[in-house]
């Protein structure tokens, strides 16, 4: 390996390590009691009837961050679609139906609906219990891909019309943005959670716009992960290069 790189790595790494260790010694002790922002966030969450404080921070107090996060996911998925598109010198090969062992197939087909429902449940209860649009969306999208194990690739492609998922990904982002802009139209702030009643604490409809934004994120994440996995699967299974190019 390159000598210079090792020297740089040794010197730079040691220097940064020394700096970080010195900084760690200056940090407030682990488990300390002073969390001013955290305490304010808990208070704000309770005044808006959102039982899961993290959902309140994500979809109400710092909903603008979540907008950025969503857009990152959206842009990255769009980027992956563009980067993994079929190039001029590639063609699609129909994959052979793979033999899957029977127990695996049965297991996958049983787990699939369970996982799908779990995902949706986790999305729906985001403002009440741990979980939410993001976690549930990933679970639901990954669950769909159990079909790859349970049946075969072509079955998966049938239940997974990619264009629909791409559209729903984009529509979910638009929904989030429109909900945010509704605040501006109503004369208050962008993403203001003051338009809907806050509802009864600890019920599914509590928290004003929190459940709506949460649902938009859930839809976006689920569609985005489906599209992402589909593109990688396509590469791994279907797209082939022309030989001799």
């Amino acid at each position, binding site marked *: 390996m390159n000598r210079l790189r090792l020297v740089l790595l040794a010197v730079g790494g040691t220097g940064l390590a020394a700096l970080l260790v010195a900084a760690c010694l200056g940090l407030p002790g682990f488990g300390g009691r002073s969390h001013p922002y955290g305490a304010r966030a808990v208070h704000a969450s309770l005044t808006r009837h959102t039982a*899961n404080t*993290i959902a309140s921070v994500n979809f109400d107090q710092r909903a603008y961050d979540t907008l950025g996060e969503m857009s990152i996911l959206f842009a990255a998925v769009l980027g992956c679609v563009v980067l993994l598109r079929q190039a001029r010198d590639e063609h699609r090969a129909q994959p052979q139906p793979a033999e899957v062992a029977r127990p695996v197939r049965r297991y996958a087909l049983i787990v699939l609906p369970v996982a799908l429902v779990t995902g949706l449940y*986790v999305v729906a209860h985001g403002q009440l219990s*741990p*979980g*939410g649009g*993001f*976690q549930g969306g*990933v*679970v639901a999208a*990954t669950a769909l891909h159990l079909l790859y194990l349970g049946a075969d690739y072509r079955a998966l492609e049938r239940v997974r019309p990619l264009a629909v998922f791409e559209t729903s990904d984009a529509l979910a982002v638009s929904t989030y943005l429109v909900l945010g802009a509704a605040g501006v139209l109503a004369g208050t702030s962008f993403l203001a959670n003051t338009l809907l009643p806050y509802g009864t604490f600890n019920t599914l409809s509590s928290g004003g716009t929190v459940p709506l934004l949460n649902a938009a994120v859930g839809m976006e994440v689920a569609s985005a*992960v489906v599209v*992402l*996995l589909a593109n*990688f*699967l396509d*590469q*791994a299974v279907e797209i*082939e*290069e022309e*030989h*001799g190019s």
Partner: protein
Amino acid sequence: MSDAVIVVALLLTAASATAAVAQRDPARQALVLSVLGSVLAVLFTVLQAPDVGLSQLAVGAALTPLLIMLSVRKVRRRGRTHDAAAKDGAR
């Protein structure tokens, strides 16, 4: 008691991170990363962050390793078909 659990989870995290870096074969690294994701999920739960633990489990232990595996498969498959093509050409 809870301190001891946290310490164990932290040390496991550090160990699996080291293993993930030290494992130079990407397919095996994906498995180690999956372990790292699970250990982190446990650590987060111990640190009273079940929300984060759940998403780390979904993303770090499942999604990311899956993407890496698929990439490895693509790169390997590519290598194989190209080797085969090269052999055909040589014949």
